[in-house]
């Protein structure tokens, strides 16, 4: 279906969140002393926030040794970001396992369906069980899919956001599904 392919071409990954761990406890005060550019407000947030310029990401380093990296625009960027953090920590003298497991927790992607959407009709057509559409509160329609297990925000302009996926294929599958369903209802 060309409509689905057109929409798939417009899929752009906006944010990737990954988590990993070094397996051992960290002394955060040590980390901020030596790592420059790191923020640590104990009362506000229990982790150190280390922002890298390239790739432009933010790494949250916790006392348990777990690290979360957000803000990356692609999966390679998030790996690079984490590798940079590991190198910095190694330089301080903290030992890091050879192959740390990086698990991607969330991928946020945006896409464009190309046409103006009638959100009211879509809300009724797709069934009010999986739909949240409160124009008084938020201009977008929230559609929770069970497989892939993602949440899609549809807007009146035809643009949409897919979030909650763990793989980039989830976003593609979701876009395909929504194009199929909307086409079936004749709302596209």
């Amino acid at each position, binding site marked *: 279906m060309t409509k689905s392919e057109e929409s798939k071409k417009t899929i752009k990954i906006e944010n990737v969140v990954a988590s990993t761990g070094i397996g051992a406890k960290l002394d955060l005060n040590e980390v901020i002393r030596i790592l420059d550019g790191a923020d640590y407000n104990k009362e506000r947030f229990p982790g150190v926030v280390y922002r890298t310029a390239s790739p432009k990401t933010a790494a949250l380093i916790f006392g348990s040794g777990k690290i979360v990296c957000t803000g990356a625009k692609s999966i390679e960027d998030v790996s690079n970001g984490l590798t940079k953090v590991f190198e910095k920590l190694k330089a301080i003298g903290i030992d890091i396992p050879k192959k740390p497991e990086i698990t991607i927790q969330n991928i946020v992607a945006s896409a464009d369906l190309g046409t*103006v959407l009638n*959100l009211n009709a879509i809300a009724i057509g797709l069934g009010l069980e999986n739909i949240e559409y409160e124009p008084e509160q938020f*201009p977008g329609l929230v559609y929770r899919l069970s497989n892939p297990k993602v949440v899609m925000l549809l807007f009146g302009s035809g643009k949409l956001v897919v979030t909650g996926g763990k793989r980039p294929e989830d976003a593609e599958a979701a876009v395909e599904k929504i194009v199929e369903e909307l086409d079936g209802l004749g709302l596209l």
Partner: protein
Amino acid sequence: MQEIEKVKEVEKSEREKIKESIKQRKEKQKLGAFEKATVECPECGSHTLVHDYERAELVCNECGLVVDADFIDQGPEWRAFDHDQRMKRSRVGAPMTYTIHDKGLSTMIDWRNRDSYGKSISSKSRAQLYRLRKWQRRIRVSNATERNLAFALSELDRMASALGLSRNVRETAAVVYRKAVEKNLIRGRSIEGVAAAALYAACRQCNVPRTLDEIGEVSRVSRKEIGRTYRFISRELGLKLIPTSPIDYVPRFCSGLNLRGEVQSKAVEILRQASEKELTSGRGPTGVAAAAIYIASILCGDRRTQREVAEVAGITEVTIRNRYKELAEELDIEIIL
């Protein structure tokens, strides 16, 4: 191995298809049975069946077939010729209502110290009656759940009165709240929050929507909290509420602005056209309604300023300005300022 898996998958999908078709058939049957409950004449299929109380017959109005004979009259066995007699003979009290925690079914001992024959009661029994009255009043709210329910329902009543809502909206809200209590959704939330959310849901369900702002004004909870609680409640209770249509707000805003019926119908017409052209997607319904009323008021000559309309609708002037420009452009309406 792969082939076996494929065959298994095909079988599974077919089984699911069969299950779906069975489910749909059952639903149709249920609907069919429901339709039969609203009786229709077995011969001509008409729905106009008349109760003939003189002969105790249920007769079809079209073909004259006697559908049911000797039906039981469910009224009282006495007759009354004026209001006082009826009050004296009647055995029933006020109708049952869900807006009181005991559903309106509890009773009180009358304050008059007279027995059923009209004689005064002895002083010993009078003291006893006084104690009985006190205990009867105390027992009415028996445990913590009922006390919370009573508090919540009084909150609902207060808010509904402040907003001037009709009886059926109050009943609906009370029913929604009771369902929430049954499903134990109140835990971890403020009672006022759930009551406000139930009221919001009831207003929407009865097609007299009140904006979250309006409910937030009369409630002790913030608008954001009410919205969040409402989303949670509607999800858990499975309340399928369609998004509010701007047309539902028009009568209220128009009467708030003292506009004639002509302006009102013009505004509704504009909104119909707008929804056909899909201009209302993603726009708050109050904003669109207010803009339509603004345009209608100009077109009918009975102008209201943007500020007045914005105040009645509870939105900003900027919103009206943006919306009315969109509407005027898309619907080719000329605004003569």
